[in-house]
């Protein structure tokens, strides 16, 4: 279950990154559609946070530390909303670049989350 959510978050985050990088390339600030995209990615990350906590509650333990795991879960859930706020305060191509960077950062966090959780667990 966690793996499925992690893949979903990673893919949507990378799509968001490409989309916003294209907007930055075209010298456009983020628009309403981008923010809907950010909301979708954030929702996926929030679902992941809940699923991760439920798995912990059921007694599953990550391979590389529970505190680190929870830290990454929370960090992943905060990344895109913070990028969204930053892009609201920077209404230029650079605001789009921030969201693109946020999507890439989130994808990296997902990779680390996967490693921390460990291959042995579902």
């Amino acid at each position: 279950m966690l793996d499925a959510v992690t893949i979903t978050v990673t893919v949507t985050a990378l799509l968001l990154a490409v989309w916003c990088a294209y907007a930055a390339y075209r010298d456009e600030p983020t628009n309403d559609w981008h923010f809907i995209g950010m909301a979708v990615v954030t929702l996926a990350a929030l679902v992941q946070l809940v699923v991760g906590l439920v798995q912990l509650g059921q007694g599953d333990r990550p391979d590389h530390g529970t505190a680190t795991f929870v830290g990454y879960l929370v960090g992943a859930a905060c990344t895109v909303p913070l990028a969204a706020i930053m892009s609201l305060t920077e209404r230029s191509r650079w605001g789009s670049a921030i969201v693109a960077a946020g999507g890439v950062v989130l994808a990296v966090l997902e990779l680390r989350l996967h490693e921390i959780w460990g291959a042995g667990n579902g």
Partner: protein
Amino acid sequence: MAEESTADGTEDTAMARQQTPPQAPAAAEAAAPAPAAQSGGARIGQGPGRLLLWFYGVFTVAALSRSIVQISTKFSDARLAYLLSLAAGIVYAVITVALWRGGGQARKVALVACSAELLGVIGVGVLTLADSSAFPDQTVWSDFGYGYVFLPVILPVMGLLWLRKAGAELRGAEAA
């Protein structure tokens, strides 16, 4: 913090708009959320600087939380490495705050911090390649930031280039 910068730069904003017509549309557009941010010196955190601010913010959180977890759970394993990660986190925090606040003074602080960051990442990079026994565990700056897609070595270079450019614009605005 946004309110604080409003107090700092309200007068400058009106002047900046009159003096630098090319900036005016951007200033007007950005005026709604953060009217003060367009005053001369504050610009180090705008445009490309805002992207740098975002990266430095992420790295501050990453380096500080990482070193705090490592120092509190397994400090004796690799004291030097964990203290270096902590130092890196503090340098990132200083740059983040400087970019956020803006102004000539903050630009100088950011210049010094970015230089320290560049020296740190190069120094630690050379050390980790030359004598890996000194670092039994990775730091943010190990192997020139390899573990962080080399961003630790790219960021200070971008930061210094940007601060230099923003400084030239700042002086231009003051001279006008």
